[in-house]
Structure formats: structure tokens, C-alpha cells
């Protein structure tokens, strides 16, 4: 059958035009992301392994126990995750993938940071403005249902290979829950609390920062957790455009049909995922 609508051609033309006309912007974004990734990666790797493990284990323990850090019931709750962190990280270190694990962590953290910086304001906007909500919603649906691989093409086009296109594709893929859950959290703040604020003379900004955002925080943190997990699930795909880390080892494992390599690096990703998930979830669940 003949193609009647050549939609792809127009998209391609549009992307081309964007690339040519705004190259300064793309260059700036590329530089910014590359620099951030580099600095963060260097920082993470400069921390001695033992210290790093202890800090994260401590953080995990604190996230689980909260204010009961030094109480008996706290010990029961927090010890499991802290032990998991120590053993899991020792395993990754022992398998020789520590550097890659930190590269992956860097990518996840940078992508998450960008996704939140973009996502939370859009979430607030969509909660407060019905028109904005009507525009943002379908875009989010589009972003989530489009296969993640598709984002790689324009990402390479604008930023060639390396960490930047990986981060960009990851951000696009992991952004929606940040927007959605921020919006949901704000919408779910009880009307009578907002009315009370208004009755006492709160400005719109005061209502947002003193009432809505604090009360939406658990939901927003659940969104952060989702963003991190989605970002982590992108690491293998991102490695196809040259992003470094555990993902690229998995990718090598696929290409070389190397079961040992694939399994070890895959397990590393799982360990990272569990640690990140449990820690952020605990913070989200806390009052």
C-alpha cells in the first residue's frame, strides 16, 4: 500500500531545523550535563569504598528508623536494610564493578535531579491550572507510552554519543511520575486546610509553599522514588548511545553472548535498584 501521510518526514525535517538553528543551546546543554556527570562521578569515586558503604548503610538505617534511631524497635526495623547495603555493595565491589556502579549511580542521580527540576514545577502548574493540566496530561501519556528506544534517536542527533544523550533519554522517560505525583499530591490536599489558609490572609504563594507543598510532600517523594526506579531501568537502553556504567556491561554481555558478565552486571543493577528504592520509599512513607 502506498504511503499517503509521510508524518515521519515532517518530524525529521522539524528535528533537523531545531538542530541547525539552536545549536548553541544544544551545545550548552551538552556541556552542562557532561560537566555535572563528570564532577559527580569523580566525587563518588573519590570517596573511599569503606566510608561510602558505611555512609549509605547509615542513611538506610536512618531512613527506616527515623526518630527512633537509637531505640530497640528502631534496631529491628533498620538493621535489615543496613546489612543488605553492606553485603550488596561488597558483592559489587568484589565482582569488580564498583566503578561502573558509581557511573550508573551518577547517571541516575543526574537524570533524577533534572527530571525533578523540570517535573515538579509542571506538576504544580497542572494542579493549579486546568488549561495547563489539559495540555500537560496527554503529553505525559505520549512520553510514557512511546517506546523508550525512540528517544535515543533524537538524543544522538542533538548530542551525538556519550553520557548526555543517555541522560536526556532517561530524563524524558522518567519525568512523567514527577509531574503526575506532584500534581496529584497538591490536588489531594484537603480543601478545608486551604480555605483556612485563605481565611487567615494567605497569598497564593503562601498557600503553595506553606500548605500545599508540605502536605503533598509524601506523594511527591513517592514520585521521586518512581523517577529513580524508571531512571535505573533506562541504564541498559542508555548504554546503547554510549552512556557508561553497569548498563554498558550488560550491553557488552548481550553482544558477546557472555552469560557471566551479563548476570553479574545485571545483579549489580538490581542491588542498586533495591537500595535506592528502599531508602527513598522509607523517606516518602515517613510523616
Amino acid at each position, binding site marked *: 500500500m502506498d504511503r499517503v501521510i509521510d508524518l515521519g518526514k515532517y518530524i525529521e525535517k522539524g528535528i533537523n531545523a531545531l538542530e541547525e538553528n539552536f545549536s548553541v543551546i544544544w551545545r550548552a546543554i551538552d556541556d552542562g550535563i557532561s560537566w555535572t556527570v563528570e564532577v559527580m562521578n569523580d566525587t563518588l569515586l573519590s570517596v573511599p569504598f569503606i566510608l561510602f558503604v558505611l555512609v549509605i548503610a547509615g542513611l538506610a538505617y536512618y531512613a527506616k528508623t527515623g526518630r527512633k534511631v537509637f531505640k530497640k524497635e528502631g534496631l529491628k526495623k533498620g538493621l535489615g536494610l543496613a546489612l543488605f547495603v553492606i553485603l550488596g555493595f561488597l558483592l559489587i565491589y568484589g565482582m569488580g564493578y564498583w566503578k561502573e556502579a558509581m557511573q550508573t549511580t551518577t547517571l541516575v542521580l543526574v537524570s533524577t535531579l533534572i527530571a525533578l527540576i523540570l517535573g515538579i514545577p509542571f506538576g504544580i502548574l497542572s494542579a493549579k491550572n486546568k488549561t495547563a493540566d489539559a495540555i500537560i496530561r496527554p503529553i505525559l501519556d505520549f512520553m510514557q507510552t512511546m517506546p523508550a528506544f525512540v528517544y535515543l534517536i533524537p538524543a544522538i542527533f542533538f548530542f551525538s554519543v556519550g553520557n548526555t544523550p543517555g541522560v536526556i533519554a532517561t530524563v524524558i522517560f522518567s519525568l512523567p511520575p514527577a509531574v503526575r505525583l506532584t500534581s496529584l499530591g497538591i490536588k489531594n490536599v*484537603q480543601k*478545608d*486546610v486551604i*480555605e*483556612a*489558609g*485563605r*481565611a*487567615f*490572609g*494567605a*497569598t497564593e504563594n*503562601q498557600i503553595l509553599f*506553606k*500548605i500545599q507543598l*508540605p*502536605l503533598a*510532600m509524601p506523594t511527591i517523594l513517592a514520585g521521586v522514588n518512581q523517577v529513580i526506579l524508571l531512571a535505573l531501568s533506562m541504564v541498559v537502553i542508555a548504554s546503547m548511545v554510549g552512556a557508561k556504567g553497569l548498563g554498558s556491561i550488560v550491553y557488552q554481555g548481550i553482544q558477546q553472548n557472555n552469560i557471566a558478565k551479563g548476570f553479574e552486571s545485571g545483579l549489580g543493577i538490581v542491588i542498586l535498584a533495591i537500595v535506592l528504592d528502599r531508602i527513598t520509599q522509607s523517606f516518602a512513607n515517613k*510523616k
Partner: protein
Amino acid sequence: MTEKSKKNIKLKVEDLTLIFGKRKKEALALLNKGVSKEEILRKTKCTVGVNKASFEVREGEIFVIMGLSGSGKSTLIRCLNRLNEPTAGKVFFDGHDITREGNKELLETRRHEMSMVFQKFGLLPHKTILENAAFGLELRGEPKAEREKKALDALETVGLKGYEDQYPAAMSGGMQQRVGLARALANDPAVLLMDEAFSALDPLIKSDMQDELLQIQDKLRKTIVFITHDLDEAIKIGDRIVIMKDGIIEQIGTAEEILTNPASEYVEAFVEKVDRKTIITAETLMFNKPTLIQLAKDGPKGAIRKMRTAGMDALPVEDENRKFLGYVWLKDTLKLAEAKETSVSKALRTDVPSVYKDYTVEEMLPLISNHRYPLAVVDEKSGKLLGLVAQTSLIIEATRYGDEEVNELIEKANDI
């Protein structure tokens, strides 16, 4: 009444109307033409929430707006601080029109002049009790030390000293509402708006809170607009009461005025079930200018004549200063007349109870059980007789039986 009406008018509401819906102007025009609420809803799909409400709230009084759900009372109170934007009409606060205030002025009014207490408390779960009580002050930008001091004072006023560091979730409904009240008081506003503030509480706690509010009001003398659907509550705490129905004000008056003189069938049906014993006072029930025997002037014969004319077998007696002394009985007076006495003073019985005009039916009922004559209502200062309360009217008020039924009962009782 006269004493109160001298006080300043704090809030004055003029023809306040609020219409919900998109075609407000059209609906308002129809309303002004006198078209009914139902017709307006059918024609414009707009609901009339408040329909030309006018009233005045005096400084230092508790003004209760009372009505069933859907009567527009909550909508009305929200027009006073413009949480609801009135469609037409004016709200004067100390003489200036709040409905014409710009954004900044309105914020100032809300921050300094009017505080609100809500049915669902509206506390912030992530803040402590102290921070919640200080929230209004935080919003208007007071420094931390200062606002915490004021909030502590307010918490003490509502009896929550020592709970500052708790969180709302750890408290009962009654305590949460105390926090809500403290938050409103901490702002030290001229007007307190209380929207069904006690309606979500258990009956006992509700009653406690009402007492507490009255105590606080004794000290602070705020102007309070209080919304409720509970007539007993309205009567208990209200200096004056407005009864609303379908967005229209049916009647304004004191509890007693409304109970004794309901303005419409609706109000009448509404107040029917109220326990009138604690509300109706001697002043309402007494008949003025009763036949009197003057001790200095009337001898036994004159007294007998007066009793026969009035058809009574006992009459009150006053001295030359018009001070109430007691009663004389027909049978005693007849004996005196036979003995050719010139004064009734020997027949005078002074061991009779008398009441002041603000005595309630409940207080007067025990007084009539041992006597068979009307209760004398005397002036608190001069002792002058103001009027008499017939036993029949007391029993009618207490039992809600009709005139004839009560007379029958009394006759039966006398026969025994």
C-alpha cells in the same frame, strides 16, 4: 435591648446576594424582578445561595446565623471575609465596604480584623499545636518569638497549655477545635467568624466548648458571628439569632423574641421542639397592670370589692412607695371586714415568693407548687411590682398543653 442597641455596629450587611453559576448577571436581574429561586434555576441554571440578606452585628455580641443545611448560612458567612465573592450587596466593617476592597486590603482585613474557625478545624497536620496556633501570625509575617508568645497565650486561653509540641493527629476533635479557636484568637481580630465550629463534636464535648466560648467571650468581648444548624446551640450562646431558609433571612431577634413571636410558619415549626422552659422569662409571661391593693388606702371592704371585680380570691398588696409587700386572701379579708378592721395589714401574708423579670419558666415552676396565686414579678432595685405571672401560663409553657387542658388539670388537682 435598649442598652445593647447603643453599642456600635461592627458589621453591617446590606442586601447581600450570592448566586452560584455562570449566568450570574441574568439570574440577578431575574431575582431583582422578584422571580422565584426555582424559576431562576430552571431558566439560567444558577442557584441563589444567599438572597438579599440584610442585618447588623453589634460590637461585642454573639450573633448566631441558624438554618438547616442548604439554607445558605455557610455561604453567607464566607461572604463576610469574601471567601465567597458576593454577587451583589455590601458588607460594611466599621463603616467601610469590604466588598470593594482590593486584593491587598482584603488580605489585611483577613490578617488583622477577621479570623475564622471551621467545622473541620482546618489544622495543618505537619505543624505542631504551637505552630498551628501561630499560623495566622506567621502568614502576616510576625517574627517567630513574638508569634509564639501570642500563640502560647491563646493556647492558654483555650485550656491547651502543655500541648504545644503535640501534633493535631494525636488530639481529639474537641482539642483540635480548641487549637482552631486559639489560632483565631492569637490574631486578636475584631471579629470572629465561626462556621459550625462545634457541629462535628460529640454532644458532651460540644456543650463544654459552648461553655468555654461563653467564658472566653466574657473576658475578651469579641464580635462573633456564629453559624449553626442546632437551635439549642443558637439559643444557648446567641445574643441574637438569625433564622435562614433557602438563602432568605426569615427572622432576626433574641431567642425569646423568636420563640414567643415566630415571624413565619417555618420559624414556628422550627422552634416548636425547643425546650422553652429555660428561655421564656417572667417578663414575657407576666400580665402588666394587675389589680393591686394599696395598704395605705384600701380597707378590707375596698379590698373585697377589688377582688370581686377582678374575679380573684387573692390580690397583691403594695405600700405607699409602690413596693410589693405580699398577698391578701379573700377569706381572711372577709373576717377582717366582719371584725370591722380598717386596715388589711392583719391579713397580709408576706411569706410569698416573688421573682425578677429575667427568671425563666424553669426557675419559676418550683415556686408555684405550694401556692395558688400568681407569681409577683418585682423590679430588682425598687421592689416595685411589675406584673404577675399566672400559674396557668407557666404550666402552658412547661407542658405545651393548650389553655383549656391546663385549666382542666388545675381544677382536677384542686378537687383532690
